[in-house]
């Protein structure tokens, strides 16, 4: 596999308040990466910053390389080719991402005309094919419908069709199913994995739902207060999380079967970005925190094949992991 996109040392500050504090993340071609974390942890800002979609007053630093070419701060002509063409994005609230006074055909054809060398009848045929692909029944007739005539799940399907219009190499799905009912969520997730397989597309699935990410991604990165604290293959992360925050998140999830136990809640709340604690941002809530945690922020360091964690005290957990593997 070859590397598709590499983010290094990405940091973002809004009027001097840092919200993203050095994110390193790489994605292979065709890979599905999950990004989990609580609200305000920087999951969405990472990709908005990478694609130059943040407001002008945001201070962005670091590097984002797509196929080895730097795109952070690239001229807008180049970014216009990247956004929608190479990298497409879908959001939590699909209804507000569509124009309510234009038909689906107008909006789909607009995306196609921008990113593909098609014209006239070919555009319309392609629009119908896309709508078919995302499972909208009676696609030919539904093309002339307006967004409000679709149900919530169908609007998200239309959004996915628009995202696919440019044949992207990478789809950023930002909480794509959070606003949907459970059975519709299952439909959309299945659709995403289907189009990903069919188009050989890489995907970043941003979600606060550990279960959604675990089931749909090869690899998961856990974010906390503007940093990645742990990255691992998803089965390993959920079977045996190393960072105390990742452990806390998994312990806080009520089980659906087996005996009921008291939830291990993480005490306290996420720190205010304007008053970040010195050292590890998680230390004030961490049960394992020692003196060294308050001194310097730990960096994301590899602990095993394809696993890395940013925690001083992870050393102990790591030894346990390696010990078990050696036996």
């Amino acid at each position, binding site marked *: 596999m070859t590397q598709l996109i590499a983010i290094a040392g990405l940091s973002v500050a809004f009027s001097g308040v840092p919200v993203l504090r050095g994110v390193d993340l790489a994605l292979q071609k065709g890979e599905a990466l999950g990004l989990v974390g*609580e*609200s305000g942890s920087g999951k969405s800002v990472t990709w908005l910053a990478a694609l130059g979609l943040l407001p002008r007053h945001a201070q962005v630093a670091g590097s984002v390389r797509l196929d080895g070419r730097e795109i952070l701060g690239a001229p807008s002509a180049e970014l216009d080719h990247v956004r929608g063409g190479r990298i497409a994005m879908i959001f939590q609230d699909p209804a507000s991402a569509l124009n309510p006074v234009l038909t689906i055909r107008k909006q789909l054809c607009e995306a196609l005309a921008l990113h593909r060398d098609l014209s006239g009848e070919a555009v319309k045929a392609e629009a119908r094919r896309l709508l078919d692909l995302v499972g909208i029944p009676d696609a030919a007739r539904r093309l002339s419908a307006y967004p409000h005539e679709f*149900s919530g*799940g*169908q609007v998200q399907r239309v959004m996915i069709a628009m995202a696919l219009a440019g044949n992207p190499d990478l789809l950023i799905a930002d909480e794509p199913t959070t606003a949907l*009912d*459970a*059975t*519709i*969520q*299952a*439909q959309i*997730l*299945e659709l995403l*994995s289907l189009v990903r397989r069919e188009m050989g597309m890489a995907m970043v699935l941003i979600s*606060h*739902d*550990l*279960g*959604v990410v*675990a*089931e*749909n991604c090869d690899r998961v990165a856990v974010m906390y207060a503007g940093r990645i604290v742990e990255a691992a293959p*998803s*089965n390993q992360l*959920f*079977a045996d999380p190393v960072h105390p925050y990742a452990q*806390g*998140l*998994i*312990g*806080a*999830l*009520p*089980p*659906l*079967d087996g005996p*009921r136990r*008291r*939830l*291990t*809640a*993480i*005490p306290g*709340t*996420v720190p205010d970005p304007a008053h970040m604690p010195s050292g590890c941002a998680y230390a004030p809530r961490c049960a394992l925190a020692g003196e060294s945690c308050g001194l310097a922020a730990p960096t994301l360091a590899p602990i095993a094949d394809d696993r890395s964690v940013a925690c001083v005290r992870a050393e102990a957990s790591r030894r346990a992991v390696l010990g078990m593997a050696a036996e």
Partner: protein
Amino acid sequence: MRPPLVEVSAISRSYAMRSGMFGRATAVHAVDGVSLTIAKGETLGLVGESGSGKSTTGRIVLGLEPPDSGDVRFEGRPMAAPGTAAWRAQRARMQMIFQDPLGALDRRLPVAVQIREPLDIHGLGTPAEREDRVRELLRAVELTPAHGARYPGALSGGQRQRVVLARALATKPDFLVCDEPVSALDVSIQAQVVNLLCDLQAQLSLTLLFISHDLRVVRQISNVVAVMYLGRIVEIGSADDLFARPEHPYTQALVSASPAPGRRSAGRIVLSGDPPNPAARPNGCAFHPRCPRAVPRCASEVPALLAVGGNRQVACHLVTGAETRDAA
């Protein structure tokens, strides 16, 4: 079996809905013949997707909305008529918590004042006693008096939901209806509030009606769980047993759609189609157009909620079909 605190029998509620400005009004059956019993000190969980009638059921149980038919009994007595003194006394003993704590709080009042309000309204205690009670309530929901002096905007989401909980507990209610109380909270904060609710319930022997779309949270907190689909209960049973061995095809699909870490999506049941429009309720079993196992009988005959052994009841011809055919 503990005595029931709340008995709901065959409540129905429909709303008139107009399609378009000049369209004909159609009746939307939000709740259709729902019966429930909640034992004292227990929690009944109500799950279902949007439009299944969970919230309407909660509002009717609390007397916020009258049922078109059927009745609700509290401690064996029918609910008093709204607006009467008896109704006010009864309402002090039953409270509600909503999903959005910021919407439930007044942004221009310190939260301690808002926690005190129910005591003022119901005239409970002397002013000094009320102040003590507010401090006691803040402590009960693990907040400090300093938090009490703040405005809602200066508190985090989890803290706001604790304030709403403290206010609901002010009048020492016996019965609490919680409508998606933790859905807007982050996972780690959600666990704090769920634990707090469990602790308070044990300490105060509260009876809860817990409404949520989140199967995990419902299982964590409930003794009995009822699953609703388009205004009807399709399956009801003990919380431990129901999600481990769901009988109704809809419950099976819901459980299967609930993603779990460590379980890949192999064999997941993905339902086709959207949840049906409550205004155009399918004939027969409302679930049959989406049901992977539907038979012709499902399209014509409404299945009744029947006991299938243990304390499980299911409304599905395929599950209860054998018995009913024998009876016929």
